[in-house]
């Protein structure tokens, strides 16, 4: 129990409060709104940094835990906690929001834009920090509303279609998650007489093989859509394409991680046996996502759609890392979630800069930008190389850990996934050649170099890309204990008590408890 400063509650309530403040301020001054937005998100970043400093490395359990009863009639409590798996996702979220708000030019001062962004930040942080399944679900769903309004309010031509598709797709999948959560809680209440949504207690629920698999599928349906995992990705290219720059940054950078985080936090923790049973299926989907995403990205002529499909491929890596069920692969997956968030955000921001200057996302309309803006081209190159996974940049560390960790247990999947790295190099380099090389036509003559303001919000991202590439140690040190605890938990539950076919399942309470204390 944490007796000191309630970091986590503040992390969730601070942006929510700032959103409310923005909404009720009787002014529509852009400067003021922008200032409130910056103040809110930067203060949140400050708290996140402080929480990271206060986080003690080497401890794999949840830290800074806060529990307050909320709806006691239903056993729902405001339970927040952070461990190595969520810590850096929280930090990444706190970094990306001010950056995204900085990266959204004129409308960045719109009152409601700022309010929705801050509310979205609260929703994302709440999802990463919740230990109570229902509170998690609430925040998980809450994120849909601001994104819907962000896309419809400030998106591109087909924003209504894209936003509605996104909303309905994810809401539909969440139906399964909610019923899954309630079923799990019901089973737990039947066994223990205690109605609780606390994931730490629910992990000790005894599930028969079928129950486990069904619940796993119910949970994973929602996460697979949110991430998205192939073949549940069809909403994402549209949503990313039609979002404003900030929306795309948050959708791909932060919200995609809600899905993969959900898989690691809840699927692995709650249904270890089902995870082991179904791992090959998910690994295969991950690998298909990697290859398919890469190939489809290669034929895109629209830069945003290209990044959307490349995102699908990178999320495939994370899925492979999560279901390889080895320490290194899982650490790699967690790290890769952060990496992907950072460089995808950077790519979307750079694409937005190009659009702002020339009004196009299409590789057909763009050429020779390198001559006009070498620094911008340089940053693009660096980000792109990180995305490809070149050593020395952050993408490499994550992908290497995932592939080497997966190779230990699932050799052929690792081999197939490696092919994806090559495909990624192909489509990104093609796109780069198209857009940056060559001779600028008269249209590109007006193309200008990156401004100081743009540089200001790109700088932290570039810094993180390089830092994590050369010096991932401090981060991995904090991730690994939690990951090890989780992997031990999964192995314990899944392997200690595998029931013989046709034989009733023996309770696995000791192992589950042991792994989760």
């Amino acid at each position, binding site marked *: 129990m944490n007796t000191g400063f309630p970091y986590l509650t503040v992390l969730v309530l601070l942006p929510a409060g700032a959103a409310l403040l923005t909404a009720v301020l009787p002014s529509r001054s852009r400067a003021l709104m922008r200032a409130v937005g910056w103040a809110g998100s930067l203060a949140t970043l400050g708290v996140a940094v402080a929480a990271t400093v206060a986080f003690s490395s080497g401890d794999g359990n949840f830290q800074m835990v806060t529990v307050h009863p909320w709806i006691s009639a239903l056993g729902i409590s405001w339970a927040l906690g952070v461990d190595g798996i969520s810590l850096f996702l929280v930090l990444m979220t706190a970094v990306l929001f001010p950056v995204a708000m900085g990266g959204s030019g004129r409308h960045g001062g719109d009152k409601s834009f700022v309010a929705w962004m801050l509310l979205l930040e609260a929703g994302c942080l709440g999802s990463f920090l919740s230990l109570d399944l229902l509170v998690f679900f*609430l925040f998980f769903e809450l994120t849909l509303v601001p994104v819907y309004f962000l896309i419809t*309010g400030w*998106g591109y031509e087909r924003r*209504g279609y894209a936003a*509605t598709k996104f909303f309905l797709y994810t809401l*539909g999948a969440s*139906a399964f998650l909610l019923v899954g959560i*309630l079923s799990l809680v*019901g089973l737990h209440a039947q066994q223990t007489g205690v109605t609780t949504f606390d994931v730490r207690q629910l992990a000790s629920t005894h599930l028969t093989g079928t129950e486990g698999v069904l619940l796993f599928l119910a949970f994973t349906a929602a996460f697979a859509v949110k991430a998205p995992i192939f073949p549940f990705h069809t909403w994402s290219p549209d949503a990313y394409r039609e979002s404003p720059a900030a929306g795309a940054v948050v959708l791909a950078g932060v919200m995609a991680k809600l899905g993969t985080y959900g898989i690691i936090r809840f699927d692995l923790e709650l249904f270890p046996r089902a995870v082991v049973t179904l791992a090959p299926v998910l690994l295969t989907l991950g690998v298909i996502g990697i290859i398919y995403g890469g190939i489809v990205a290669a034929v895109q002529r629209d830069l945003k759609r290209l990044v959307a499909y490349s995102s699908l491929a990178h999320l495939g890596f994370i899925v492979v890392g999560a279901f390889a069920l080895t320490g290194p692969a899982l650490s790699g997956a967690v790290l890769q979630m952060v990496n992907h968030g950072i460089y995808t955000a950077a790519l979307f921001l750079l694409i937005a800069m190009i659009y702002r200057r020339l009004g196009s996302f299409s590789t057909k309309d763009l050429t020779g930008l390198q001559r006009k803006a070498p620094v911008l081209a340089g940053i693009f190159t660096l980000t792109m190389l990180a995305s490809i996974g070149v050593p020395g940049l952050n993408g490499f560390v994550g992908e290497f850990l995932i592939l080497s960790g997966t190779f230990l247990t699932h050799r052929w999947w690792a081999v197939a996934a490696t092919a994806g790295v090559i495909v990624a190099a192909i489509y990104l380099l093609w796109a780069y050649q198209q857009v940056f090389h060559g001779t600028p036509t008269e249209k590109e003559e007006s193309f200008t170099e990156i401004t100081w303001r743009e540089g200001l919000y790109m700088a932290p991202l570039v810094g993180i890309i390089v830092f994590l590439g050369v010096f991932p140690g401090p981060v991995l040190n904090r991730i690994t204990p939690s990951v090890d605890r989780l992997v031990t938990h999964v192995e314990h539950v899944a392997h200690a008590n595998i029931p013989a076919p046709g034989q009733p399942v023996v309770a696995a309470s000791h192992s589950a408890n042991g792994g989760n204390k």
Partner: protein
Amino acid sequence: MILASATGFAVPHIDYTAILPELILIGGSLVLLAAGALNVRHLPTRVYSLLSGATGVAALIAGIVLWQKVHGGGHPLTAVAHSLVIDGFSTAFVILSACIIIVSSAIADGYLRREGIAGPEFHALALLGASGAMLMAAANDFIVIFLGLEIMSIPLYVLAALDQRRAESGEAGMKYFVLGAFSSAIFVYGIALTYGATGSTNLAQIAGYLATNVSTSNGLLLAGAGLLLVGFLFKVAAVPFHMWTPDVYQGAPTPATGFMAAIAKVGGFAALLRVFFSSFHSLEASWQPILWVVAVLTLVTGAVLGLVQRDVKRMLAYSSINHAGFILLGLQAASREGMSASLYYVFVYAFLVLGSFAVITVVGGRGDTSHAIESYRGLARRQPLLGFGFAVLLLAQAGAPFTTGFLGKLYVVEAAVRSHSYALAVIAMLTGAVAAAFYLRVVFVMYSLPAGEAAPAMALADGGALATGTEPAAAVAAPAGESRGGVLVAAPPEAPAGAATGAGGGLRLRAASLGIAPSTLAGIAVTVLFTLALGIWPAPLFSFVHAAGLLF
């Protein structure tokens, strides 16, 4: 207790405090009618509305006193020769009915004044209808349920037909009346058969009879219960007895629709839950599968047919059918938790539907006719507060988190999961997602540009995004602080679309400012605040509903 008079007719002791809320409403209704009939000086509509609201407040206080009596220290009781039961469950519905009257009086006030409908009829009928719903909730005897049903229904038939200038209104009243009369007849026949099978019309006695007797052939009883179920399902608009709903909802004057949607669900579900949960509890195995099918049909029909509607009133009619399906989930669970869940859902839904139809009343404009979805285009930009309120109410109906709508769905789905109706739970949530599509459509239209600005210039703002008339966008969803200047935001010079708005926008401004009465706005504000506040801090309503148990 029972005094025998000389003629041999037993006059029961009447505990007037137990039926005080009903009496207050009926009394208020009579006072209103008398004032209207005497009509010395033409009383302004505002006075009638205030009287009606005050009656509602009085009934609310009486209801809270009853609640305290039942809940704090005292105990549930039966009254008037056991034909009424005063327990947490009935008092909760009494309190809810009183709230509905208060909010609905405020909302109707603006409408009546705008349309120039003088006289106390609307309020008098509404008060009478609400007293019927209260009676249904407190009834412990089929005869009393029937009385309540008729006292509630007949004013609703009249309310539906109240707007004489529109033929649809008369048609709605007629349709509602004819079909309602049919369903009442079926209901009475159900009472007769049940009486034949069990020898009583008293709910508790029937429950006792069924608990102690095992009948070898219970065809008569099942037929009776089935007919009763049909009668109830008609009132709550469950499929396949929903045919009247879209036409009546669309045709009735809009504030009457909101009131009707709220109060008919209250009365119908209060009695339905009580009868099936306490009297026919032992027949659970027979009615649970039937309700499963009915719930699925109701959920799916409401959601799917709602998708294709272009008229917002009609759309909300289908949405109310979808909600009825959710409430049935709680009954289908046949558990104490399911009861509480259904009660909670009815509570939450009543406020949502009142607020939604209040917004529709405002947008409908003079004559109450512009209900096509296109009339909502740009509403949130012209009237940010109103738009925000409607967005909250619609999103809550779609089940957005941190609103009461979500918690209602959560509660009933949990009850369903607890009774192992997993498939039903999944179907319900999926239809919720389908229904979200049509709520979102309205929200999207509200937040898109007004018709004149349909093709905004593709201004390349330095944000990289399409600048859609940038300044109005700033007003989007700004929940507060916009009331002064928020009616029509002046377009900034750099937005070329702004000039085009000029003429059309001015007209809209005048039309919009005509329709909004402060009382209606207050009614909407109450429902929105209820939805948000209890969505974020749900403990009070949850413990209230949790405590509202049945006596039997």
